[in-house]
C-alpha cells in the first residue's frame, strides 16, 4: 500500500499535501482500497469554511457510504471536478488525479495533530492485525 513521504495523514485516512499556505486533500490508498470501487464523491463547495476533524465530504462505494473529515481548518479554494463523472480516479490515483480539493490553511500549526508518513504506516499496520 502506497504511503507518500511528504504528506500528512489523519486517523480517518485523509491525506494533506502542504504547499505554502494551502494544502491539497484526499483519501489514502489504504482508505480507497478498503472502501472498494468508489462510485460517488460529494465534495464541499469552493469558499466553504472547514474545521479540522469536521465533516467535509462523502465517498460512496458499491458497498457503503463513508464520511471524510477535514485535515485542517480553512477555506476551500477549489475542488477536483473530475470526480463527479470519474469517481474511480480515487481508486486509480488516490494521491494525485483522485485528490478531493485544495484548501487555504487558517492555522498551519494544526499539522501537529496529524501523522507523518512513518507514523501513518505504523498506524495502518496496527489496523491490519
Amino acid at each position, binding site marked *: 500500500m502506497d504511503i507518500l513521504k511528504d504528506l500528512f495523514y489523519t486517523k480517518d485516512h485523509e491525506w494533506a499535501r502542504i504547499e505554502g499556505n494551502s494544502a491539497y486533500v484526499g483519501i489514502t490508498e489504504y482508505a480507497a482500497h478498503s472502501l*472498494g*470501487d468508489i*462510485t*460517488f464523491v460529494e465534495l464541499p463547495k469552493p469558499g466553504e469554511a472547514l474545521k479540522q476533524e469536521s465533516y467535509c465530504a*462523502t465517498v*460512496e462505494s*458499491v*458497498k*457503503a*457510504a463513508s464520511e471524510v473529515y477535514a485535515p485542517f481548518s480553512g477555506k476551500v479554494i477549489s475542488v477536483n471536478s473530475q470526480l463527479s463523472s470519474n*469517481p*474511480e480516479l480515487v*481508486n486509480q490515483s488516490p494521491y494525485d488525479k483522485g485528490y478531493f480539493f485544495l484548501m487555504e490553511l487558517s492555522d498551519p500549526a494544526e499539522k501537529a495533530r496529524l501523522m507523518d508518513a512513518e507514523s501513518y504506516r505504523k498506524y495502518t499496520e496496527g489496523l491490519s492485525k
Partner: protein
Amino acid sequence: MLEDPKLQKTPLFQQHQKLGAGLAPFGGWLMPIQYQGILAEHAHTRQEASLFDICHMGEFMIKADPVSSGLDRLVTQEIVSMPFGSCRYGFLLNNEAGILDDLIVYRIGLSDWMVVVNAATVSGDFRHLKENLSGGSVLEDVSGRMAKLDLQGPRSREVLEGIVGARAGELKYYTFSEFKIFGSQSCIVSRTGYTGELGYEIYIAVNYAERLWETLLSGGIVKPAGLGCRDTLRLEMGYPLYGHDLDEKHTPLDAGLLKFVDFSKDFIGRDALEKEQREGARESLICFQADSRRSPRHGFTISDGGRPVGRVTSGSFSPSLGTGIGMGYAAGNYDPGALLSVGDGKLEIPVRVVKRPFLKKTSLNGIGVK
C-alpha cells in the same frame, strides 16, 4: 482478519485465499465478496462470463409422490405437472402467507426432486418440510455433500460446452440434466441463475468442487466473481434477495410476485393470501432509480413529499446504468414515473419509481450469443 469459528467455509475456501479474495460473513458462511473489484467483476459477467462459489446454498433431495406426500401443497407453484428435467421457482409460505423462503424445485423423476434453498434458511426450511411431508416420503439435506458453482455470462455456454460437452449447450431456460465430467463423475447442470445473463448452475460432489473450479477458470475466458457483484447483478434485474426483499412479514402479493403462485391448487398460506387479495396489500415492493450516482441503501426511509411511506430493502450503485437503484416496501400505490425520495435523515436522494427489471437487455434468453 480474526476468524469466527462459527462461520462455515465452502470447499473452495483455499481457492479464494489463493486468489486474494476479500471475505466476509454471509448467511452463516465466510464468503468471497470480491477478487479484483465489484465493478470489474460485474462488467465481466455482463460481457464475458464469471464463476461464483455458491456452495453456501442448501440442497434437499426428496423422494415423494407430489400429491399424497404433501410436497405440492408446500410450494406455491404447481409441481405435479412439471416435466422431468425442469425447474420451477416458487415460495414456501407459513399459514399467514409470509414468505419462509424462495426456492427452486428440480424434478428429477416421477417421485424424485431436488429443492435448492437459501443458505440462512436451510435448517428452518428443513424443519418446515419435515413437519409437512407425509411419513412415506424421504427428505435428505445433502447441502454438506453437494457443491454449487454458478457459471454466468454471455460466454458461459461456449465454456460449458467445452468442459461438459455439446449436449449441455442445448439446455433450455429453467431445465436441467445430469452429465458426466472428469470421466465418470456425475454432475447436475441447470440453465438457471441470479444475474440476468445466460448462465448455468452446476451441482457436483464437494470433493470435485476445486477441480471443477480450476477447470472452468483455466481457459482464461471465465473469471472468479464474488457475492458483491452477484448482488449488483441481481438487483439490476429486480430479483429479490431473501432476508432483505423477502421475509416472513411479507407475502408474494406484497412482493409483487404472484406470478409464482398457482391459485388453481392448494398450498400452505393460500387462505391468508386470498384474504389479503380481497382486502388489499398493506405495502408493495417497488423499484426505484436515482437521477444521480448516489446509492439508496438498505434501511433508508422511502418518503413521498417528505412523508415517510416505506423502507429500502436493497440499494446500490448500478454499474450498468451509472445511477443508484433500489427496491423497498411502500404503503400506497406508486406507478412507474412516481417521484419519491430515499434517505437516512442526513441525506435525501430523489428517486423515480420504475418497472422491473432495471436492466432490460441482457443475454438471458441466449439469443445472439455463441
